[in-house]
């Protein structure tokens, strides 16, 4: 596969949401095992729309299917939304300290300042 094709796959994984129409339910629902509650979730520092990286899984992984597909090696980490459902993911580890305080500054590992997360954490 050419360099461009390889990175195209990564980019599609990362930017795939840009042209996607989402329902209110998809936007509002924060599942019991949402990625945002997981220790392996790291917020993206550029796009603060709630997307982040999984610290364990690489691009090509799919935690929506059953059984989940895990890719552990690769060029880039898997991009997931804070409210993606992580219930099928064996790497889900609940985080004890979730910081919803948006007045402090970026901390990809702990901070989840979205309105939906504020409600869910409370």
């Amino acid at each position, binding site marked *: 596969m050419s360099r461009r094709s390889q990175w195209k796959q990564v980019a599609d994984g990362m930017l795939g949401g840009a042209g996607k129409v989402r329902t209110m339910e998809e936007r509002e629902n924060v599942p019991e095992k949402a990625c945002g509650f997981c220790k392996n979730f790291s917020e993206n520092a550029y*796009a603060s729309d709630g997307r982040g990286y999984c610290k364990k899984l690489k691009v090509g992984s799919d935690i929506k299917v059953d059984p989940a597909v895990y890719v552990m090696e690769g060029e880039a980490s898997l991009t997931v939304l804070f409210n993606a459902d992580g219930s099928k993911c064996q790497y889900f580890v609940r985080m004890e300290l979730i910081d919803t305080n948006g007045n402090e500054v970026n901390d990809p590992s702990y901070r989840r300042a979205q309105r939906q997360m504020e409600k869910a954490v409370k």
Partner: protein
Amino acid sequence: MVAEPARDGSVQELENKQEWWWVAEKKRSKRLDYLRKAVWKKGALGGNYAPGIKLDLECATLFTDMWNFWKYDPIMMRRAKAIAHVLDNKTIFITDHAQLVGYFGSLPHTIMWRVDGASMVNEEAYNEPGIMPEPEQESLEKVAKLNDYWAGQTAVDKVARILDPEDAVKFLSGAIGWGAPSSAYGYSGKDYEYLFAGKRGFEDIIEDIEAAIEKAEEKTVGVPGPEILDIYDRLQNWDAMILVLEAAMRHAKRYARLARTMAENFETDDKRKEELLRLARTCEQVPAKSPRNLQESFQYDHFVQMFARVEAHEGAWPARPDYYHGPYYDKDVNIDKTLTKEEALDLVGEFMIRAYEVGGFAPRWAREGLQGITGTWVWTLGGVNKDGTDACNDLTIAFLQAARLVRVSNPTFGFRWHPKVKDEVMRECFECIRHGLGYPSMRNDPLLVQNAMHWHGHPLEEARTWVHQACMSPCPTTKNGVQPMRMASATANCAKMVEYALHNGYDHVVGMQMGPQTGEASSFTDFEQLFQAWTTQMQWLTNLLVRTVNLGRYKDPEFFGRPFLSGISQRSVESGLDVVSPVGDRGNCWITAFTWVENIDSLAAVKKLVFDEKKYTMEQLITALKANWDGYEQMRLDFVNNAPKWGNDDDYVDDIMIRCLQATARHSHVMKCPSGNNWPILPENVSGNIHYASIVGALPNGRRCGDALYDGGISPGPGLDKKGPTAVLASCGKIDHIADGRAFLLNQRLSPTQLAGEKGYQLWKAYIRTWADLGLDHVQFNMVSDETLRAAQKDPEKYSEVIVRVAGYSAHFVDISRKTQDNIIQRTVQGI
């Protein structure tokens, strides 16, 4: 009203206690007091908007409706029609006591939402706590609907689709830089020479455009040939410019009508009635016709800024108000005597307040990087005329005085110092600094004029018109010199250069191979190998950012379109091209170099402790860094305290600074902008040093991931400049401030106690003389004591008006995060 009463005590007592915010409240007019307190502050508190600030759904909806309706029009025309629809239909308002009008949102507490800028920002707006207008559910549904409409067709979506996919992934990782490669989030310079020096109102411009159309049409109805083909597009563009300029004039007339309605139907006070009628006459005159007096001149300028902001999310406010409005001040106050100095001061203060209240919805990284403000409104004062004579005038002084009365954190001033500046003006600058405003920053005008000629080839006369295009970078206000889009996505998180050099290009924060594989640093046997790796990472990082934004700039006329900005720019009026097109732009690009000095202190520490003294091995160092220094505290302290640090006049480390700058400067001549011009670096930080604190890994200068990075530019690390202010200046003076980069930010903290009174002024003036003699281009000061800042942390409401200099901008201390506050307090208070 939330107006707090002024603190007890006389002005003199408050001045003695240096409680300048209470002094201002007592000294300013009732009008200014009302207007200042009436502002809904749009700057985010850390990363969150203040309570009560709401997303403007009216303008976003009006814009989208008409954008959708005219879906088959070319992009400039489509945008012009959508903007016109907003201007014709949005809610407007006139605040009690106001003499100047214009806000780009619909109501005073709303933040404009650039709905066509970026899908990811739109989704962020949806997720943002606290900003949905009530009823919340209804607003969320509206926002979701708008987001679904724009998904995939915003300006940034379009650029992202065509970027090299590897570049896109790495840029959007958020690790190496920020900004948006689109003029949708622009920092546009304004062609003040065309508008103000040329004394043109919009009606005059339309005449110019019509003349250009007539000339072009001679060709489109003439002999066929390839040279006439692109004229058809230009004709569409010209039509779009006329359409939006006409809408802008209609919009101003709406204010005129409202002012008359208020005067004739509601107002009972005769004086206010007369003010409202004057305001009506003002809005009937400008922007249609050129201004006749100071109020009209300010109003014209403010309208121009508002219209540009309805068109794009403007992140900066390049302006030179004393230079362009000064003649009207002189006419009204000194010659015709139609305004007293006090009345003029009210207008100047209000002109600043109108800018202060402006704010749009910005993505979180921008809010965190510019905590407390909504953009870098750095207005330029002082400087020289085109012939090199002193340009300071009575309005320069009035701005410096008004700033102390209204105490806004935005706009701030950058003062173009030169040897002919009169003492009375210098005293006014100092008074602003002494009052703790953190501005004006002092800029070395002769040097920066030369710098503009060196890097971008601006002719001398044009270079002398320069204004701050954002925080720091000078840009002329002329036809070919003005830059319509500050290419802000070439904002580099430079600490990653040394981080990647130490980790073979791998980024442990985002878990990605980012930079090139320059070798395992644990196997490096001498400093030259590390430096070579650093150079390769520096070139890779700057290349990527510049490639991205160059493409964004080149495609912008196709992906976004700026009919209004084009309509007020001479080169577009003449050519019919979108002003963002690189054609006719001389080029004035710079790479904003965040987190730069970490490279220098880190490289010096490795050279000293690993390669020279062999106290540690590279392997030990890399292990400690990967552990974020956890378990290596003694070693970390060694790297902080026993390695030379920038800012102490120590050649060991200063030579590394020069070497890094020169390597980068060489590369700056290799990389070219779409106009074929250079890409110099400009080290500064805004509050990016805090935003990036948890994104940059541990470094050999002793920082951990999470620690604030240095406060930026060429400022030494907080608390690490231990040899006094002269040593700081001596280190900084070793840099060639013309050939080594575009400009270099230096923060200094001074003691308010030491600089009290006449003696304090003389000390400061002598300091400035030394600064200029050493050839530095910039310096700015914080002059608020530790006591005050700690007290403000404890009791923020009581100290809500304390202002500090963060980096290239000022902010109210209570609006910045605790980490940023501590970072400022940590800076060394220099005795001079």
